[in-house]
């Protein structure tokens, strides 16, 4: 990117045809409520951002506590609150005014009709990429067994959303599907959604859910009792699933889960990720974690004579 400070290595990557100045993107649900906060994430070094999951209608989250952390992980049950499409429209328009890094709109719904409705809405907002969330464990109650668990349902909702995007003037906008690790075979689901029209995969959503009990109260700490496990604890799972999906499909992947450092991000890319999602590390390393990670990737590339970061994508597969 011409306006960026010159670095030794070329960190830019192309993902589903969209160019990112570096592969680090904000994961959905972290700091993605407002346009200005996403622009701030870009100022803090990210190559792109993902919005919080957008619903076709106003959706209430869970009562507090919604997030707790230990040294090893974060547990969250925010419950995907959202004010609905009107707010989303306003925020995306504002984002476009203040920031030119790619914008990934993450969408979610309770039933099939919801997905149709939000797909049609989001098509009109013209994000750079649409990310379909079929997998959030802490809205299990609403999604029933979440769609991510079923190969058939996952493909069906992907087809539906792709069609609604096409019908509403967004046929050029890539659709990617965000997968849950809490299934018997994430690879089968990845294959089925790619066959159904997805251009890429985001892996992984939060793990579990898990539970933390405060023994002094003999009570679960999260108001929702259980919440998705994220942060350093889940990195080996995310790396493994990205590795498996890449191996089986060679599809473009946003590798997300437990990435906190430049080394973590490179590990995810070697496993097969083109973009690397960062969420919980915003807490573990601070709001400027994006720039720190980018800087660390840069240093590693320099030390190892890597001129173009994208040559590392899937590298571990070459070696055995």
């Amino acid at each position, binding site marked *: 990117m011409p306006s960026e400070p010159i670095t030794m290595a070329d960190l830019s990557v192309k993902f589903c045809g969209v160019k990112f100045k570096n592969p680090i993107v904000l994961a959905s649900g*972290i700091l993605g409520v407002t346009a200005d906060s996403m622009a701030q994430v870009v100022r803090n070094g990210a190559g792109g951002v993902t919005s919080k999951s957008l619903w076709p209608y106003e959706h*209430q989250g869970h009562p507090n506590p*919604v997030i707790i*952390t230990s040294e090893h992980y974060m547990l969250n049950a925010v419950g995907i*609150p959202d004010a609905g499409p009107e707010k989303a429209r306003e925020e995306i328009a504002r984002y476009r005014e203040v920031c030119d890094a790619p914008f990934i709109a993450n969408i979610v719904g309770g039933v099939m009709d919801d997905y149709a409705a939000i797909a049609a809405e989001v098509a009109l907002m013209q994000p750079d990429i649409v990310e379909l969330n079929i997998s959030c464990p802490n809205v299990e109650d609403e999604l029933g067994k979440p769609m991510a668990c079923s190969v058939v349902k996952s493909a069906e909702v992907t087809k539906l959303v792709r069609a609604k995007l096409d019908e509403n003037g967004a046929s050029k906008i890539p659709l990617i599907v965000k997968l849950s690790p809490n299934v018997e075979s994430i690879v089968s689901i990845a294959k089925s959604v790619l066959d159904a029209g997805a251009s890429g995969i985001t892996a992984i959503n939060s793990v579990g859910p898990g539970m933390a009990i*405060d023994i002094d109260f003999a009570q679960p700490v999260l108001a929702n009792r259980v919440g998705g496990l994220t942060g350093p604890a889940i990195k080996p799972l995310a790396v493994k699933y990205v590795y498996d999906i890449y191996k089986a499909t060679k599809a473009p992947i946003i590798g997300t889960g437990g990435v906190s450092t430049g080394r973590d991000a490179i590990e995810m890319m070697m496993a097969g990720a083109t973009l690397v999602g960062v969420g*919980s590390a915003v807490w573990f390393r601070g709001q400027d974690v994006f720039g720190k990670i980018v800087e660390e990737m840069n240093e590693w590339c320099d030390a190892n004579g890597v001129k173009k970061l994208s040559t590392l994508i899937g590298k571990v597969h070459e070696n055995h």
Partner: protein
Amino acid sequence: MKIINTLPRAVAIKKIIQETEQVKTFIFDCSVGAKPGQFVNIWIPRMDEKPFSVAMDTGTELHISIAAVGPFSNAMHALKVGDKVGIRGPFGSNFICEKGQHLALLAGGYGAAPLYFFAYEAAAKGCTVEFIVGARRKDLLLFADRISALKGVRLHIATNDGSAGYEGFNTDVLKKIFNEEKIDCVCTVGPEIMMLKAMQMAEEKGCAAQISVERYMKCGLGVCGNCCVDGLGVPSCIEGPVMSLEKVKKLRDFGKYHRDKLGKKQYFNF
């Protein structure tokens, strides 16, 4: 990597002081190592968890002053000595001062509590303080006795009905002080309209200011994004609540709107 564990800690209430009709101070036998202006999240299991400023952290005792305004704060008021709540924090930024400064503190609502904590520390640092407390009427005035007991701190009172001190807004008192004294920094906690006025006055006078920007908070960790302020786009639970005049001037929402728990803008109607 910052290693930090934010599981709530169960602590028993050691003492409860009924400050006014609306406000109680809860005293806990613990410290969170808070600085003035920082807040903690207080958890009542199976109820909710909400942010509250620290009214005093002595290193062994923690004080929190809570106004009963809705379900959670009323549930707090219903607790008795010995009952336990979960506490985590401290979170957010704090008020700062330099040795020997002359400060004006402007408090509305429960704002007198965290500002008392700040005045206490500022006085200990050799600052002199003009402390303006406002309330609707005399019996709603918070911490007035404690404030007047501080050395180097002068208490000014404003009540809407004139039942104590100046009759009118506490911002009028601030204006008067500005005209009479050289103030190094204005620090304010209270209703946004009051803080907006104070900020405008400070700007006119070329005086520094620190303002406690309160937004709807959930996590307190800079993660959920609900408390982010427009303009800067930063989470107010991390870069706030206490922000400098320079920062607040860059906010697009300050004095205009805040966001509800779904992230929807709610315009102030004043």
